[in-house]
């Protein structure tokens, strides 16, 4: 059984299908990257999987539990970083972590884990700053720390490094690799192709809500008949042309 099973997922906004009949899986110890042009349906897919949007059709199972039928149990198995991470304005960074620990009813050793995350993400100087005073990158790191704190088997990350400085980006990439080594599944949506190339075990390419290609970066290169050293931008453009 895969960690995440998405089958026939469809979501419509008015007359427009944001996602249509999308099916894919994410295994344990795997990083899957969603790629696609603006409006391809990447964020909507992540929102449906995270349980913040109800799909119109299809099923989503996380660790064997359907997010539609038992959302509370399914959400215990996921951590989510939205595209626009908004901390609560009147909570400090540390209080955000405590809130998540309380919601997940984590045992008392959550503090040790929270301190580790704060140190690793270089949030020490912001630990006691209110959410409303945080710069954009720090907001992103704060919500990322919240997503990682309960160590969920599945992480859903929407543009996870877009506002983070280069050193922070290296740290985040390292943390994601560590999580993969420890058997966590990670689903990332991004426009940064170098980031996708560096981390992705598998890439799912979306366009206008539909899956147009899926495979390892090498598979995709083969599919569009370009050389092994061709940049991912070229693969991306060719797939969209096709």
């Amino acid at each position, binding site marked *: 059984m895969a960690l995440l099973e998405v089958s026939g997922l469809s979501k419509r906004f008015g007359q427009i299908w944001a996602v249509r009949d999308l099916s894919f899986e994410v295994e344990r110890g795997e990083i899957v990257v969603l790629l696609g042009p603006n409006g391809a349906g990447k964020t909507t897919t992540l*929102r449906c999987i*995270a*349980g*913040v*949007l*109800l799909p119109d059709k299809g099923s989503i199972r996380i660790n064997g539990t359907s997010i539609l039928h038992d*959302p*509370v*149990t399914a*959400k*215990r198995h*996921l*951590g*989510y*970083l*939205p595209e*626009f*991470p*908004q*901390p*609560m*304005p*009147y*909570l*400090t*960074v*540390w*209080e955000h972590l*405590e*809130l*998540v620990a*309380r*919601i*997940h*009813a984590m045992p008392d050793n959550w503090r040790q884990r929270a301190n580790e995350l704060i140190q690793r993400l270089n949030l020490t100087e*912001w*630990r*006691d*700053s*209110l959410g*409303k*005073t*945080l*710069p*954009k990158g720090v*907001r992103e790191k704060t*919500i990322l720390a*919240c*997503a990682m704190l309960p160590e969920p088997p599945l992480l*859903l990350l929407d543009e996870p490094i877009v506002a983070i400085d280069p050193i922070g980006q290296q740290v985040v990439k390292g943390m994601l690799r560590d999580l993969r080594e420890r058997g966590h599944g990670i689903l990332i949506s991004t426009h940064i192709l170098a980031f996708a190339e560096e981390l992705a075990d598998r890439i799912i390419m979306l366009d206008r809500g539909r899956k147009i290609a899926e495979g390892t970066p090498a598979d995709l290169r083969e599919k569009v008949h370009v050389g092994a050293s061709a940049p991912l931008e070229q693969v991306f453009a060719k797939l969209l042309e096709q």
Partner: protein
Amino acid sequence: MRLRQQWQTLLLLVVFAFIGLVAAIWVWISENVFLKPLPNRQVFWLVLAFLSSLPSFADPQNFIPRLPEWKLPQPIPARAMTVFLWLSEFANLFCFSLLLTLPAIVSASIVLKGAADVAAITMLVVVIALNACLGAALASLEMTRWRTKLALVGRLWRMWARALAISAIVLFVLFVVYLKAHIDWVKFVGWVETPVGMVILLPLMPAYHAIKAAFDGVIAVPILLTLFLAGFTAIMVWQALEVAAPFCEATFLRSERQQRLTKMGAWDAVTQEFVAKPIKSESGFGLKATSLLWLYWLNWKRNSLWAGELPALFIILFSAFVVEKGLPFPSLAIVILLLFYRVFFPHPPEWLKSQPISAGEAVLILALPSALRASGWSLAILFTLALLSPKGIGIANFFAFFLAMIALGFGIDFVVQALRASWWTKFQDFPWLAFVIAIVLGNLMFLTLTDHWLLGLLLSWAACIVLYLWAKERWLKEP
């Protein structure tokens, strides 16, 4: 126009009609005790004159629209951009004043006279528009430091209007304090219409007499005052046009500063004069869904909402104290204050919604403080009325009111949660909103017909359950 925008416009009209309807009910309920005698009516006019003249003394910075950063380097002439800014500000001020005052005036004049005087209402709309125009012109003069020749007159006008506003607040407090001392209101408000009173209150007089005309008919005085206001406004607009370029620049700079600070996440901190220094993180309470109460507590404490608790209680008790025999006015005050409190609690962001809490529990727990607040206020009202009313309050009505107010507290919170999720843009909201209006009106009717307390109580809780389902549905469907 897209269908959605049409519905948004319709929603605005519904809200407008709702305010008018509430005002009419209020006037109808209080007809015999409040608005019928002339001095009370004059106080009513004076209060509405203040609201209609709000642009004359309001802080202009709150009404000027923010310019998006991409517009700053566009090759748009300063004069063209200024006209756009003025029009936007004028529209804001005009709609604001109109929405606040017109429904109450029209409703009251219909209730007291049986018909609205169309000519007088038209003149009133013109006065409100002139005030909005004057406010826009004074705003640009103020932002450019009153540098034109005749700007001093505008500055004096604004200072004068602001002094009157401060005096009005002082008088309001005195009104509350001396209410039971049987102050001679006839003498007091009669002074407003004497030549001396008219000169002292000149910035308010065009609006005051235009409102009065809606009740007493159009005579020479309101026409002359409207002409005076039109002339004065024209001079101020002419002066404001002289400073179009620096005004535009000042607005650009203000917008740019605001946008840069917003990007840095420091705008709130600057506007609230809050230094972004670290504070002491606190230990939380609650587990799973109940930990959301900790969230509420921190927001209440750090957003200084506690500072509003005593004034809110004062307003509630004051409303009970003034009306004495009736509950509708205090319960309307509860609705408004609950809405006021609720909008200061941020809508749960996406990452919080992805946490393992059931939607039903989250919606209920987030509404709990509103229900608690409503129950506390309703008890305060009931004990005040029990002390003041010679007959006291029947035990059934006591509990009916108390329980209905808890339902209202929950209900208002559910409405805010649901509407903030969809941000007033959904076609499906219309029947819901109509339902809410019906429930609030139903509640008010029930409170006036105390013999039907059981019906009212059942209606309140039935509405509360329906609104809960609505808020829950929105929590699930909207990010």
